[in-house]
Structures are given as C-alpha cells and as structure tokens.
C-alpha cells in the first residue's frame, strides 16, 4: 500500500478518524510472498507469513485484530493461521522455523480480517452512513470483490463466495447506486498480467466490459492487485484488442472519503491511469487531473509571438 496502492493508503488515513479506526502498523513487516513464494517453497511460505503473525502478536496493543487491505496479504495471513490451526504438523514446523529467529506464534492468537470486512461488519453501515455529508447520489458503481477475500473464506466472514453483497451495501450507504452484475468475484488476471498477458487481457476485458454493460460509471475495488490490473492494464488491454474502454477503477476507501466530504486530492484521486474525473463530475467532485494531462511541453524561446524586450 505504500507505493503502488498509495491512493488506497492515503484515503484510508484520511477517513480513519471518521470511522473510529485506530491503526497500528506492524513494525518491520515482510512481504507475504503473494501467490509466488508458495509456488517455490511450499512450507517456508508459511514461515514467511508466520513472522508477520508473530510480530503482530508481539506488537499489538489492546487488540487481537489484524487487518490487511490487500487480498493476497489478507488471504496469506488468514491461510497460514487457519492451516496451522488445522494441521498440527504444520504448526510445529512453522514454529520450529520461527524459533530460529527467536519468535513463535500460537495459531488463532490474531483474528485476521480484511479491511472491508471490518468496515462493513464491525464498524457497520449505520456508522458509515452517519458520517456521510456529501452523498454520492447518481453515481453508478460496480462493486468488485475479486477472488481472494471472499474465497476460500476460512472463517466464514461473507454471505456468499460468488455473489457477496457487503460492498454493495456499503456503497449504497454512501448514497451511490450499486449496479447488478455477475462478475463481481471473477479474477482480475492476478499474475497472468506479467507471465501470460494475453490470458490476463481477456479476463480484464470481460470485467471492464461487464461493468460498462451493467451501466457502471466506475468499478470499486478492495485490492491493490485488482486495481493495478483493471486500471493500468486496462490501457494495455485496449492496445491489445484495439478497443477504447474508459472505466475508472477506485478503492472503496476513496469513495468513502468523497462521501465524507474529503478533498479528492487528499484521497489519492488523480493517480489512476483511467481518469476518474468524468465519472466524478456526476457528483460534482472536482478530481485533480491525472498525471498525463498535467504534462505540458516546456515553452521554447521560439514559441511565443515576438514581444517588445523588457529590460
């Protein structure tokens, strides 16, 4: 979230006081390994995640909640915790490895929750609604959950693995109009955008086309990987298929910020590849221009009309 999903982090920090969310970052956290570490070292991948779980347990002050905004980070934390609970052999192996670094982790000690889950189910729609000062009336949104938050769902947090409704309800609480569409938990392409772009482009087109066909002004996401694939790779996908889709992709925290009356700039709006400004004009939110539009050619001496010298 610190880099490629900076807008996600900025918007979360901008709204955290409104929703009474106190956040404490795990000091010196390491990468969760995404879907790649586990593909190479099957068991060490759990030790990699185990370090984060152990650090969280040791550092947490007055809480046993551990939240992540990214689907893969969330799933890996939840998965290691769940599989250590289920498999005593794995628990033992991970703890032997952690001991080499002076750490240990008792599975179940932290309750791993995705940020959307906390916002919808703990903070609640009513508390969110109470903070809305600028309802997003007229904005049609496609709530996109992606795969790894709602599946495999080790702790049964969601109402459905294929057609969940939590984010739709959240967006409705903000005054927006969630559209009905069938692709809300289809894959964004994941790592295929790098290792097999042709496969990823097909998946991205299906999602973007589906959202547009459902009448959505924009797609709302809860994961940095999904945002990157649907936004930055939408541009590449258009080149690949010779299409011209222009469906902006924002984080749910950015829309919460808009409804709470925050300035678009403070929510990281304007850092997306597909410009969200036309869609946000519907709710009179002045979106800063995307970076590309800002770029101006430096004037050259010969550009201007001859002017009298100003000595």
């Amino acid at each position, binding site marked *: 979230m610190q*880099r*490629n*999903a*900076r807008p996600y982090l900025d918007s979360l920090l901008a709204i955290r006081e409104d929703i009474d969310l106190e956040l404490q970052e795990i000091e*010196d956290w*390491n*990468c969760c*390994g*995404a*879907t*790649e*570490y586990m*593909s*190479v*070292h*099957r*068991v*060490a991948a*759990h*030790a*990699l995640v*185990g*370090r984060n779980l152990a650090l969280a347990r040791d550092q947490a002050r007055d809480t046993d909640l551990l939240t992540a905004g990214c689907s893969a980070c969330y799933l890996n934390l939840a998965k290691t915790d769940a*599989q250590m609970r*289920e*498999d005593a052999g*794995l628990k033992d*192996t991970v703890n*032997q*490895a*952690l*001991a*080499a*670094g002076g*750490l240990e982790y008792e599975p179940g000690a932290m309750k791993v929750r995705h940020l959307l889950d906390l916002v919808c189910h703990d903070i609640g729609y009513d508390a969110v609604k109470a903070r809305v000062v600028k309802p997003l009336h007229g904005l049609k949104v496609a709530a996109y959950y992606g*795969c*790894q938050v709602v*599946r*495999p*769902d080790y702790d049964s947090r969601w109402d459905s*693995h*294929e057609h969940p409704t939590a984010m739709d309800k959240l967006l409705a609480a903000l005054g927006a109009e969630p559209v009905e569409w069938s692709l809300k938990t*289809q*894959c964004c*392409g*994941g*790592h*295929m955008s*790098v*290792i*097999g772009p042709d*496969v990823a482009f097909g998946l991205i087109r299906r999602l973007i086309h589906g959202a547009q066909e459902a009448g959505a002004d924009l797609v709302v996401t809860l994961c940095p990987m999904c945002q990157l694939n649907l936004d*930055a*790779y939408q*541009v590449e996908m258009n080149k690949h298929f010779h299409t011209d889709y222009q469906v902006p992709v924002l984080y749910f925290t950015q829309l919460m910020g808009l409804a709470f009356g925050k300035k678009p700039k403070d929510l990281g709006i304007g*850092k997306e*590849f597909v410009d969200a400004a036309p869609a946000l004009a519907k709710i009179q939110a002045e979106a800063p221009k*995307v*970076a*590309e539009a800002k770029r101006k050619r430096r004037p050259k001496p010969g550009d201007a009309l001859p002017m009298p010298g100003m000595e």
Partner: protein
Amino acid sequence: MSATPGDNRLNLCIQCGSCGGSCPSGAEMDHTPRRLFALIRADAREAVLRSNAPWYCVSCYYCTVRCPQEIHITDVMYTLKSMAIKAGLFHDAALPGFSETFVDYVEKYGRSFELGLATRFNLRHHPLSLAGMAPLGLGMLKRGRMDLTPHRIDGMAQLTAILDKAKALEGGLQ
C-alpha cells in the same frame, strides 16, 4: 503431495469437471485440473509436472469452493508447482521464472520490488516486450506509485534464519 497442509482429498475426485469449468484460465491450460488429477492417479508424473496448468492457476479458489468433494485444488496446484521446480520439469521456463524472481527479491530484501521484478523477469524471459512495458512503468513512476530502489527490512538476518530453517524442515518432509 504430502507437503500440502491438511488432507488434500485428491483421491476423492469424481472427475465431474466443475474445476475446469470454473477456471478463469481453464481454456488456456493444456490439462484442466480434472484431467491433471486423472493423470496423477495414473501416475503420469512427467506429464503432470510438465503441464502449464498449475502455473496458469491464478489462485482464485473458484474450483476449491465449487468442488463437490471439497478437494483443496488451489493448494494442490501450489504443491505441483514446487514439485515441478525441484524436478526441473517445465512447460516453459518463463512460468516458474516469475515466481523464482519474486522469491529472490523477498529473500534479499524482505519485501517485493516491483521495478526490479518486472525488468529482471522480462529481460530474462520476454526481452522483446520490455519496450512495450515502458509506458506502464513510466506511468507508475510519474504517479508516485513505484519505487526506484528496493527497501530492505531491518530484521533481514532474522527472516533469513527463519526461512533457512523452514527450508531445511521442508526438505525433510519430502
């Protein structure tokens, strides 16, 4: 297969095909998960490990939640990938190449490093696509969405000790 945590339930497969039908990249796989499981049962080790299917798996867990026999399909795919790397059997070296490059950065810095990952992977496996990727990379930099240098965590020695120990234990499992 013993490295898959818990009971993978693979021997319960009834060959119904729900997995391949649910798979977003199923159409591009040489063997769908269903066929792969039949090959495993037939002990066709090399055909299984050379398949592109585990690498084309996007870890979306659709097959896993839809499987009527509750087979841990996505987890089996991870096990197959690590087995293929150990056996040196691939359909295309670029497929494990991405995972291995990613792992290298995590083991060196404790974090992933997108700029290094994208350039090193593409240089080695798709050098011709690098020029095409440039606008995307520049766009990320311009929006402040990518670092130019990697960040190394403070507890690198601790992480290395943990991972080395885990790998030694993992070796003993197989």
